[in-house]
Structure formats: structure tokens, C-alpha cells
């Protein structure tokens, strides 16, 4: 009858030590980010998990064993839980820390390899991620395959000892820095487009891969186009079963969508707003902040629920879609609440307000457009 949190407090069993460990992890991240900030090594910003790239910070986290927390120890993980990882990711995003270098590898590539990768692939890739050396980008979207990911045309054909891949990926964030790319490619032409898809892991320095920048509306370079021209990928770099890519990538999307970065992209702006207020606010602003606070609290709870589902070995598709749908609305609404105070005529593109606003069109598009997420939720409801 009692909630799990209560049981942990009452029982004093293993869960109790988890609570203590989680508290210690939060403190460690708070201390670390404060120190880096105080030393001027980074400035908090909105959307830091996509736009604030610093391999040195990622290696610092690696040295503290804060990457791959739920993964087995033999791969450099802590054999911890996704709930523990959530404590760390929440604190990093709260601090607007420069986490972009390792984000997608830690969030979804590692977990996908753990779920579906061969022993050899796991041994080859995972230690590089937990050491902060392997930086991943996601080769999913294509010019003709955005929300409709199953429409990918990048094609892989069997070759001696592996595969030859050709095609074009777009909106590939941080490909210019990546050491590895995850690729979703078609390996068979089938009547049903969800069949015949295969996932690969390729080295970015493979001959035939070229990266060209796509500059975003803020003038920033995180998007790229990645051209694949007859790129050789060794056979052992197939992730999971050839032809089973669709089922696997749908699972991966629940990792991609169900995390706190879908809620906290503009949290640093909320921090700035609260810092700006002298301990009081007029009733109307207080009401708006109160409403945001309530939404934040509920979404943090939903993030924890998703993490607990993952710890039970599930890939919670509907919950993750719901969270991402709600989170992107919250991220946008934070900007509107901050606007009367922080959106001054002198709030330029590099101001806290400008950074958040100029990043905002992407919130409800990346990782699944809101309209498509609603249709996923609606479909589950009709089945």
C-alpha cells in the first residue's frame, strides 16, 4: 500500500542505501558544476545538452564514473540504476553544464548496444563511451525521412567481411566532432517499409564519410549533413539482428524521449528569472511561476517513473512520448513567463533569454514532432 519511496525509508534495506547514494551523486554533481562555473570554465546556458560541447568536461565526468552509470562494471559502468543516472542528468541540466559531447552515447547508444549488441560490439564500444573518448552522433533522419523514420533510403549491401553503405543523413547534430556514428539503413527492399531495416555503428573516419555544416537560425553550428559514399562497415558493427532495425530503433526512441533533457532545456532561463526577482513577485507573475513549478514537479515525477520502468527492463514508449510532448511545451512556456522581465530590448542572441528563445523552435520537433507524438499516444489509446 505504501509508495516505493516510503518502503525504502522504512525498510532500511538495499533501497535505503540507494537513496543515500543518489543524494551523494547529486551533491557530487552540484559541487563539480559549481567549481567549473566559479573557475570560469563554462557559463550555464539553455539547451546545453545539444549546444554546449566540451570533451574535457565529459572526460571529467568519465573520470568520476558518472557516464554509463547503469551499465555493467566490466564496461566502466557502476551497475547502478537508471534512477541513479537520472539524479546525475537532472543536476547537470539544472546547472546548464557543457554535456553535449557524451549525451547521446550515454543516453541511447550505450543502452541500445547493451540491449541488442553482440559481446564483441559491447566490449569494443562501451568502454570507450564510459571513458569519455567515443563521441557519438545519430544518423537517423534523412531528407525524405523526418518524422517518418521508416522511410530511410540509405542503403547497405553485403560485401566481403561486412557491408557497403551509401546515402545521406541530415540534421545530424555534432557530427563535426563525433568519433562514431549510429546509422539506420535499409538492407532489404520490402513491401512493408518497417521491415528490412538494420542498425550499424560506424567510425567517423571511415573513408567515404563527409560532413558539411547546416547553420541554424541562431548562427550556431550543431546540425550537419552527413554524406555516405560506399562506406565499408565491418560485419561485427551491425547492432542487433539485420532486418530487425525498426523494432530496435523504436525502443531506442523511448530512451531518446524519456529523459529530463526534454523538460529542462530552458531551465537555466528559469534560474535567471528567479535570480532576478527580489524574493517577491506580483500576484500574476507568482501565479505563472507557480503553474510552471507544478508542471515541472509532475514531469520530474514522470521522468522518475520512466527511469524505474527502464530499470525493470522495459522501453516505455507511450510514457516517453507523453513526457516529451509535455516537456517541450513547458520549455517553451518558461520563455514566455520570463519574457516580461528578461526579454528586454537589449536581450541579444547571446543573452540567457535570446539563447533560449532562438533554440525553442527545435524543442517540439527534435526527437519526434509533437503532432506525431500525439498520434502515437492516440494510437495506443485506440488499441
Amino acid at each position: 500500500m505504501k509508495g516505493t519511496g516510503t518502503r525504502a525509508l522504512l525498510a532500511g534495506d538495499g533501497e535505503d542505501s540507494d537513496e543515500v547514494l543518489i543524494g551523494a551523486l547529486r551533491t557530487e554533481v552540484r559541487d563539480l558544476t559549481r567549481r567549473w562555473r566559479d573557475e570560469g570554465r563554462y557559463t550555464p546556458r539553455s539547451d546545453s545538452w545539444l549546444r554546449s560541447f566540451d570533451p574535457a568536461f565529459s572526460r571529467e565526468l568519465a573520470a568520476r564514473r558518472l557516464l554509463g552509470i547503469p551499465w555493467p562494471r566490466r564496461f566502466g559502468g557502476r551497475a547502478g540504476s537508471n534512477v541513479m543516472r537520472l539524479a546525475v542528468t537532472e543536476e547537470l541540466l539544472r546547472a546548464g553544464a557543457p554535456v553535449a559531447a557524451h549525451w547521446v552515447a550515454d543516453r541511447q547508444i550505450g543502452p541500445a548496444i547493451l540491449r541488442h549488441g553482440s559481446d564483441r560490439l559491447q566490449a569494443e564500444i562501451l568502454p570507450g563511451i564510459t571513458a569519455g573518448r567515443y563521441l557519438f552522433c545519430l544518423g537517423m533522419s534523412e531528407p525524405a525521412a523526418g518524422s517518418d523514420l521508416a522511410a530511410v533510403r540509405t542503403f547497405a549491401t553485403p560485401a566481403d567481411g561486412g557491408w557497403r553503405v551509401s546515402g545521406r543523413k541530415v540534421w545530424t547534430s555534432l557530427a563535426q566532432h563525433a568519433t562514431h556514428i549510429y546509422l539506420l539503413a535499409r538492407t532489404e527492399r520490402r513491401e512493408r517499409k518497417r521491415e528490412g531495416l538494420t542498425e550499424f555503428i560506424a567510425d567517423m573516419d571511415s573513408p567515404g564519410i563527409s560532413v558539411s555544416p547546416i547553420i541554424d537560425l541562431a548562427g550556431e553550428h550543431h546540425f550537419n549533413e552527413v554524406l555516405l559514399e560506399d562506406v565499408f562497415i565491418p560485419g561485427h558493427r551491425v547492432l542487433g539482428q539485420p532486418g530487425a532495425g525498426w523494432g530496435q530503433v523504436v525502443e531506442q526512441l523511448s530512451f531518446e524521449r524519456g529523459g529530463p533533457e526534454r523538460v529542462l532545456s530552458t531551465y537555466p532561463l528559469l534560474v535567471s528569472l528567479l535570480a532576478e526577482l527580489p524574493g517577491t513577485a506580483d500576484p500574476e507573475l507568482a501565479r505563472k511561476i507557480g503553474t510552471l513549478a507544478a508542471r515541472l514537479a509532475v514531469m520530474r515525477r514522470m521522468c522518475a517513473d520512466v527511469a524505474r520502468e527502464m530499470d525493470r527492463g522495459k522501453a516505455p514508449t507511450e510514457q516517453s512520448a507523453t513526457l516529451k510532448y509535455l516537456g517541450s511545451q513547458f520549455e517553451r512556456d518558461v520563455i514566455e513567463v520570463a519574457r516580461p522581465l528578461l526579454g528586454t530590448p537589449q536581450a541579444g542572441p547571446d543573452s540567457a533569454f535570446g539563447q533560449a528563445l532562438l533554440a525553442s523552435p527545435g524543442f517540439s520537433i527534435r526527437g519526434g514532432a509533437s503532432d506525431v507524438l500525439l498520434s502515437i499516444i492516440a494510437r495506443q489509446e485506440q488499441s
Partner: protein
Amino acid sequence: MTDGPELASLIDDVTRSHREEQPAGVIPAVWPTLVELGLADVGIPEEDGGSGGTLSNAAELMEALARYGISTPLIEANVARWVLAQARAATRGLSTIAVTAGGIRETDGRLLATLPAVPWARSAANLVVVHEDGRGWIVELDQQAVAVEHHANVAGEPRDTVQLSGAPACSLRLARGPVLVRARLGVLWSAAICGAVSRAYELTRGYVCGREQFGRPLVAIPAVASSLATMRVHVLQTQAGLARAVECWDIPAADPERCANAAAVARITAAAAATDVARLAHQLHGAMGITQEYPLHRLTRRLWAWRDTETAEHEWARSLGAAAVAGGEPALWDKISA
């Protein structure tokens, strides 16, 4: 105490013959049965004369009851009993409760006050008065110095004005303080809204999947499917807000600040859901939902009333926002949203 699913099926049984709309403003016929079964005292320790169980049991009960669109004084009776049990005060008959920040004059054990919107005052034997400054009293309502003026909320539920003109009152020691009284009311009202939005959603889903227009079910229209999904998302949020609010109380020596913040979160979330779910449920039901015969209005009229009942949505939001502004970001992160 029985556990969740059993409680829900008990409510299902008890309400089976009481699901027709009752005349507005009178205690529903199912109420004496609920009292007999001890359901009104769920969440109050047995040693205090209650039925045992926790606040989460009381919330489950309220959620189940609200699904049927039945108005009862369960929340007021339950929280009044909870306050009285802590004060070791014995009463007979139905007790209701009013939490107020308004002016109350007490001289020689007699009260002078005007209390607006007291739920079910016309049917109650006793009124528990809780002032935000920490004072509390119990007043017998059937006496000369008490006048009860009948009023109703938009759902037709009694929200009477109680005039105390020197009414004799017993002072109550509030063991848990007015903040927790209001929080407990807030959690139970969130549970009521949770039950009603869940049911309104289910009715709507059934309707748009079954009703055909243009040769196919309404849900085949993408805008209809999106609206249905939006309702579902509100239900999930309401459930999550309620779950975290209830859990705070399951911890021994619950932290009052945490309980109050979590109640505010649950209430704000539930109220926002009530607004959108009522709107979308009616939109998707078309003209059918506007009839007296179809059961939707029994849910939506209550949702409109309940989102601002006891403490209004905007008041909860202002006080939670004020707490965030006063405590700054650390308070928002660790005390309000954690």
C-alpha cells in the same frame, strides 16, 4: 483496511443502485451506507475511532466515488474527522469544515464570524472552523446563534454561508496545523478531479471510437484523435501529481512543507486538467454531451466547480509561485519539484 483495487470494487458495489442523478443540494441516498461501512473515516487511525488505512486509501475512495458523478460530503466529513481525532474531540452526526483567513472574533467561548461557501452546512450537525493563524473550533450548527444561508456551486452542490452570531464554540488544538489541513483537503479534491477526468476521458474515448460519421468512426479524423490524446495526457499528469502528493503523507512524521507543496502541485495539475478535459469531452461528444440524459454533464459540471473549490486554482498557483520566488531556485528544485 482493504487495499486499492478492493476499495474501488467496494465503491462499485455500493454505488450500483445510486447512479442516477440525485436532487441537488440534499445528502445522497448512498451516504448512510458509506458511513455505515466506515468509508467516511478511512485514513483516520482506528485508535482515534477511524477506520484505519492511510490518506492514499481515502484518495482512492474519493477517486472511485467521483467517477460516478455523485456528490457526497466525503471530503469535508473525512478531513473534519481527522482534525477532531487529533484534538481528541468527540462529536455525533455529520461534521463539515471551513478553512478561513477571514475575521473571526472570539469572546468567552462564543464566535462572531461570517463563513462563505461552507460545503453541506445545511445538512451538517457540526462545523469545524480552522483559521490560518492556527486557531480552531468546533461549533454545533443546530442552534439559535447560527444562521445557514443556502448557496450552491455551479454543479449545484451546497456551498452555504454560515453566520455565527455569538455561537458557543469549543476551541480545538490543531495538532498538525492549518497548512496541513488545507493540504489534506487539496489532496482529496485532486483525487476527486482525478476520478472525474478519468471517467470523462473514458466516456469520450468510447464515444469517438463508436460513433460513425462520414462512413467511419470519429476517431479516424486526426484532429479528433489528437484531442483524445490531449485528454489522455491530462489524465496521466493528474495521476502523477496525485501519486506524489499522497506519498508524502505515507512517510511517518510527514514534513508539512513538503506535503503542502505537493498538494499545491496536485491541485494545480488537476485543475488544469479539469478545464481542458471538460472542454474537449464536450467538443468531442457534440450535441449528445449537452443533454441532461447523457451522463457527461454530471462529470463536467463537477469538474468546473471542483477546480476552484475550497482553495481556488489561482490561489494555489500564487502561493506555490510565491514559495518558489521567496526560496529561489534551490527551493524550486529541492522542495517544490523534487
